[in-house]
């Protein structure tokens, strides 16, 4: 079996006194697409943010590339950030600058590439998400779906080793959503990316998932490959794969 690229052990996450993740252990394997599933408010975003040290875990361990995230010093953490792209649930584009500038930020932060190369990389990425003509616009001038795609372009600006997407296809029409899935698969193959994707869309899961993590009520209900998930006897998992909804 491959060695995990991200390894979470007994992670507990709290907001104030409220326990959101109650001792979660998951492994993410390289060059796979791992889909995180679970009802709204079950803690998917919280899990991702804890893994990426956007929140400090209450207890437990998170290892990325074999290193404990909470114990990294600033330099190590910074280096890791250059290898991870994150697509936030609400896009989180910086509103005061253009889409083009939004995408150039990670490139300027983490590389010493020349301005021409950076500009070309940005144009490539914009084209990849079908926003070739919108680079000079500001986030407020984009539709919801366009914002998502622009945010994706920013997330993959650095051709990251790991791409984390929080509900990439929420709010997109089925066609765009399908082409986004194609793009995600292509990126995985071409750039050998590892992906962690939160999504509820059954169709999308069938298209892209290699592995499934099913969270319920702050606990892991199921982990395994897509095939195993489809045959799972766990009640909630079975229901989800039958009707595409959480009960």
């Amino acid at each position, binding site marked *: 079996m491959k060695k995990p690229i991200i390894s979470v052990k007994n992670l507990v996450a709290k907001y104030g006194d409220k326990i959101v993740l109650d001792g979660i252990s998951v492994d993410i394997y390289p060059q796979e697409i791992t889909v995180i599933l679970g009802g709204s408010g079950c803690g998917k975003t919280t899990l991702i943010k804890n893994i990426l040290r956007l929140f400090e875990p209450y207890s437990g361990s998170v290892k990325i590339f074999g290193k404990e995230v909470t114990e990294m010093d600033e330099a190590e953490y910074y280096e890791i950030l250059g290898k991870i792209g994150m697509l936030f649930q609400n896009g989180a584009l910086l*509103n*005061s600058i*253009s889409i*083009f*500038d939004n995408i150039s930020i990670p490139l300027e932060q983490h*590389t*010493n*590439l*020349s301005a*021409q*190369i*950076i*500009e*070309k*990389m*940005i*144009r*490539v*990425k*914009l*084209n*990849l998400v079908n926003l*070739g*003509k919108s*680079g*000079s616009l*500001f*986030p*407020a001038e984009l539709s919801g779906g366009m914002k998502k795609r622009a945010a994706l372009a920013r997330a993959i600006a*650095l*051709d990251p080793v790991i791409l984390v997407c929080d509900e990439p296809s929420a709010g997109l029409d089925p066609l765009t959503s399908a082409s986004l899935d194609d793009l995600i698969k*292509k990126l995985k*193959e*071409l*750039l050998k990316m590892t992906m962690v994707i939160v999504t509820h869309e059954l169709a999308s899961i069938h298209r892209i998932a290699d592995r499934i993590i099913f969270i319920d009520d702050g606990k892991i209900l199921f982990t395994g490959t897509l095939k195993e998930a489809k045959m799972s006897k766990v009640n909630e998992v079975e229901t989800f794969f039958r009707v595409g909804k959480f009960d």
Partner: protein
Amino acid sequence: MELKDKTLTLEGELTKFTVTALLQEFSQYKSKVISKIDMKKVTFVDSAGIAFLDEIYLSLERYSPVLINMNNEIDNAFKTFSSLDIEKITIKKTISIFEFIGNGFYNWKNSSKNAIYLLADIFYWSFVGIFNKKGQRKGSIIQQSLLIGVDALGIISLLSFILGLIIALQSAAQLRQFGANIFVADLMAISMVTEMGPMLTAIILAGRSGSSIASEIATMQVTEEIDALKMMAINPIRYVVVPKFHAITICIPLLVTASTVIGIFGGLIVAVTYLDLSAIAYFNRVIEVLILKDVLVGLGKSYFFAWVIVVIGSYYGFNVKGGAEGVGKVTTQSVVTSIFWVIILDAINSLIFYFEV
């Protein structure tokens, strides 16, 4: 990288880590004739690599070199990342001075029109709202009055008191030279009632309540709450603005009165300690000099100040652009603009009531 028989052979990985060095290395071949770029020894290409290839291709354009020996994987990367031929991105747009002036005037005309519509809307719904509380949250007027009035009372009192002290102290030195000590009462009464009380209150309200009106509405606008209100058939002006309008209308005369009285008290301290006047003499004089007109004009104009603050705060709030940053921007603008208009209104008021030829 090596050049042989007009063929440039690239090797290894073309990635964001290698292309900067490769570009430098390439600069020695720039002037050479190159008709082929051999990709056989290239093992991996990312988007920086594609950008690099495009860059060297551009500088060799006159020989239109061809890429040869691409393996499947790299060919795939090419197809995915291809299409550099998309529209050049132009961010900075320069416009001529005439366009700039024209735009400015056009925008000004439009925004004045919108502001006047909003003003009319606010006055209409505030009037209707006196009799009909439909579409307002229960208790919102009381809640707003607490926010706008009660919470501001402390700072307004303190500043009025200090201002009273300052004015009295500054003039006391002069008055004493002429033995005109008692006139400090005239000065305090008239300046506080007609000018300082209303003005100070208005400026503090602009800073406290005007900004909060603007930022509250702007945030609601940005987070699409205003749209949600509209979807639920609630008029955002009735829901958000009218309670504030009513609250500020109730509070402003009380705040101005408090400010005026406390300011006059500040003067009293100076009069008693520094000018050897008795408190009774001071107050008798204050009452003697004040005429009804001054009191009415002072209170009257403060209503206009208050309404200007609400209307301008709402105007900027509803017209917010962008996200969180836009909220900050309109908040600042609303404060500056309301203070500006408060002062303009004050000037107009003085011309109407006190200008005699």
